[in-house]
């Protein structure tokens, strides 16, 4: 006599597990919504007990990103690359006095300040670098990329501009403002040995403005 094989139908069990899982997912979604509302109320509470509304030591609410427009071209300054280089070299245990590097037509010179508390950045723009402003599509793409890396809610865009680029600056400013960005303008009239210079945590007596810190 052949042994008869017993068929077990697991479909009911699968349905139950599916339903339970679905309910748990729904509950998780509700928990996420409740959690986000709680976070908002916590943020509001934090804001209400905020003791000050303005940075005491002149740190702007937004960070700044410096761009340049000269020779009909748009330049991004290689600050990050220079600092990366300093960081890597200092990590070997030897202090770095200064470095000089060249990237995309921008010559950067970064040196340690005399008080060993910060860095001084000096840049020279070259006509063979940067992005041609005449190529509006490429400029728009580049600016979208920059604004993704440096979001408008966290950064304002400080643009150093020379007379040959004043017209193009207006277009660029409009482009940024339409996307919620804030734009600062630093017009330059004459060529100097260097084009842009600023310091971070330098206490040199020749520093003339607090905002420059």
């Amino acid at each position, binding site marked *: 006599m052949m042994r008869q094989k017993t068929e077990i139908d697991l479909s009911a069990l699968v349905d139950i597990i599916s339903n339970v899982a679905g309910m*748990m997912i729904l509950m998780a979604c509700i928990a996420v919504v409740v959690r986000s509302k709680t976070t908002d109320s916590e943020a509001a509470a934090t804001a209400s007990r905020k*003791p000050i509304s303005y940075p*005491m030591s002149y740190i702007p609410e937004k960070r700044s990103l410096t761009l340049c427009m000269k020779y009909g071209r748009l330049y991004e300054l290689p600050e990050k690359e220079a600092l*990366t280089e300093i*960081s890597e070299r200092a990590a070997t245990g030897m202090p770095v006095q200064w470095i000089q*590097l060249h990237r995309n037509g921008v010559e950067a010179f970064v040196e340690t300040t*005399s*008080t060993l508390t910060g860095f001084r950045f000096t840049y020279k723009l070259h006509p063979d670098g940067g992005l041609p402003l005449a190529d509006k599509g490429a400029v728009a793409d580049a600016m979208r990329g920059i604004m993704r890396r*440096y979001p408008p809610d966290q950064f304002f865009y400080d643009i150093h501009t020379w007379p040959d680029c004043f017209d193009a600056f207006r277009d660029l400013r409009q482009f940024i403002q339409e996307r919620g960005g804030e734009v600062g303008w630093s017009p330059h009239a004459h060529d100097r040995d260097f084009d842009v210079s600023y310091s971070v945590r330098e206490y040199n007596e020749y520093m003339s*403005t607090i905002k420059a810190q």
Partner: protein
Amino acid sequence: MMILLLFALAGMWLVAMLVWAVFTLTSHNQVPRQREHYIRFLLTGISLLALLLCVSWYFFPRDYDDPLDQIFTETTKNRPSLLERFLASSRRDPNQSIIPEAERATVRAVGKVDLTNDEAGWEFLLDQLSGAGSLSDKHIAHRQVALAQYIMMERADVDPDSAWSRVRNAIPYNPSLEEYETRRFLADTLRARYFESGDAELLAKLRKTMEFVAGHRAGNFEDQYNLALAYLLDGAPEKALPAIVSADNLWPTRGSMRSNVYFVMMLVHTILDNDKQALTMLTNFRDNYSDWIYVENYLPDIVDLEKIYPDKPALAVQRGRFHQWVNDYRSACEAYDGAMVHDDLSKTWQIAATMWKMEMTPAVAP
């Protein structure tokens, strides 16, 4: 560890489900109805895995090896993501480069990086600078790493975890100095985040961190200034005074940042009711604060301090004087009047406010 265990369990379950599903669906003995159930079962497994991830994201705390790590993480973000916690559970290799090779190549390919730092001036700098003469090469290098990472974290798109890892694992040299520089970096980050959020908990952490940093034997003028700021904002002006005086004594240069020391010292004296010192400093303010005309830079700071110290109306008198110097007579009068009705205003400041208000009164023809 808990996160890792959950990931391992969930991963094993998912693999088992996939194997089962593939095996079942490729078997020709199954009727279509059963195949459908197995697919549903597989989807259920994936859904439960997603649920598990959500639950772990919300309810399982990160394991910290060091309290400093915890402070830094709490400083830079409200709650680390699951991926961040997963990565943090196995510490990053400090020697592993975080810089894309393309960028490294960009910097190096041009061949213009010049690091022949053998000038006599550099040696002189290292040996002779005030407040820095005792720093070793490795100590300076560690500070440069921390400073570069801090600037990149604040001004570029370098993520805080990478920056923190770089600073913590920069150079092994002197444990005490390593901790000093690491906490210095932490204090910079805390200060920046506090100015962004105004969170009182961050201020408490900043104060504690700055007490360590400024109290360290390697502490410098910058640390003393920042400690004074932390005390002042945290409602401890009596502790801020010696710190700001020390900063003033140690400050190696003149210039506009030195003006900030003067400004903060004047405010501390005002809050401490040292009327004579405060009035003297206010009288000499324009000679010692080159940017006095840019009231929008510093007046909001006084307004903030008025909120922290509501029983110090002399601050409002000072604010009125600054308004008056830039010919904003209406704001000046409002500030003087607001202070004069306050019972806590001392006689000295009452007289000063009265006199300064009279300066703004137009002459009456006889």
